[in-house]
């Protein structure tokens, strides 16, 4: 039983090599996995709707649609901060199941918590405020009533703001806080947490109250060449390209 976890793909028309690798993953090892979890930021540019023709939206949706049609793998997608607005229409069009942030799943009879990771950056107070606003159901509802042209205009402004804001922030703010991580582990009663968002790929062993917990941070999928594979009861980080080649060899 193989489960794959990736996040922060940031697929963009500006980087065709990313989309090419994504296609190889989705027509290669992903087809043979039992489940694939994409934990947010599938898109680089702020996602504004299924009707958006701005590349690579339609191409990515088509890759996912073909994947769902051609493989028995369960595909789960979590919203990230670049794709807060992924909706049921997107899920229907691609054959994926949208999952909430956070979501607990069972792996080897143990609960594992999946998150995008942005909600753990609690020192970034400004961002958390913005996030509460943008993910509010009423705001989402208003957003999708707006015509595509208006959504496009707003998203351009948001993209510009976000890029600038990230550059100005201190690195300490942008990482997760230990308090938020411990709180989350306790609140959900899990010993394993998997998230992305910070692009700081690592496996952290956390000891607290006589408990051993593990936090896997998924790297930026392309730049850090990262997929987390779970099979035969263990987790391991693999380089995407190597994993694709490895899967071809074992066919």
């Amino acid at each position, binding site marked *: 039983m193989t489960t794959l976890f990736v996040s922060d793909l940031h697929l963009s028309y500006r980087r065709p090599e990313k989309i090419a690798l994504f296609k190889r993953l989705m027509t290669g090892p992903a087809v043979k996995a039992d489940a694939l979890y994409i934990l947010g930021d599938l898109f680089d540019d702020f996602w504004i709707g299924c009707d958006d023709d701005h590349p690579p939206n339609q191409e990515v949706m088509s890759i996912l649609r073909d994947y769902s049609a051609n493989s028995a793998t369960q595909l789960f997608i979590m919203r990230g901060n670049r794709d807060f607005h992924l909706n049921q229409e997107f899920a229907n069009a691609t054959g994926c199941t949208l999952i*909430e942030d956070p*979501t*607990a799943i069972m792996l080897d009879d143990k*609960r594992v918590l999946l998150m995008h990771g942005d909600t753990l950056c609690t020192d970034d107070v400004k961002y958390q405020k913005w996030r509460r606003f943008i993910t509010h159901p009423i705001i989402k509802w208003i957003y999708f009533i707006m015509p595509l042209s208006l959504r496009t205009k707003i998203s351009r402004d948001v993209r510009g703001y976000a890029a600038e804001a990230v550059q100005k922030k201190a690195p300490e703010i942008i990482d997760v806080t*230990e*308090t*938020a991580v*411990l*709180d989350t*582990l*306790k609140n*959900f*009663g899990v010993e394993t947490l998997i998230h992305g968002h910070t692009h700081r790929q690592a496996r952290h062993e956390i000891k*607290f*109250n*006589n*408990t051993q*917990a593990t936090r896997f941070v998924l790297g930026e999928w392309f730049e850090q060449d990262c997929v987390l594979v779970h099979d035969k009861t263990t987790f391991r980080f693999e380089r995407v390209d190597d994993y694709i080649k490895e899967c071809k060899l074992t066919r």
Partner: protein
Amino acid sequence: MKVLLTTTLGEITLELNSEKAPKTVENFLAYVESGHFDGTIFHRVIKDFMVQGGGMDKDMNSKSTRDSIQNEANNGLANEYGSIAMARTSDPHSASAQFFINTNDNAFLDFSSETQDGWGYCVFGKVVDGIEVVISIEEKPTTTRNGHQDVPEETVEIEKAAILEEE
């Protein structure tokens, strides 16, 4: 001091430890006596972890509460199987009415230090009768409702909470 919870799945008897958690027990009893818990549900249920309730009605609306209380988790009581503890937010002293019953030995929820991360969750009693009812709650299939995860599909309501007269 004992409290009887009459739920839609059966009765649960709690024995409260006012010696080790005086403020917490006092607070809990006040909610019992005011009828606050009557009509609330177990809204968050995770098998092999805990069942949580006492805060929302069956439409998933939060009932209003009094001021939050000081955390007394540094009382030596452990979050063992069958113990009852106060739920709270990440603020260590934010507990008000919601409680949870541990359905596992959840040592990681215990007090370790007086820091934000170390405060833990205050245990103030244990289930002395009706643990099989707690088990049946824990095993209920769950769903997401009104943005809340792990909600039992079939509503588990606390019909009445009452202080048991000493024999």
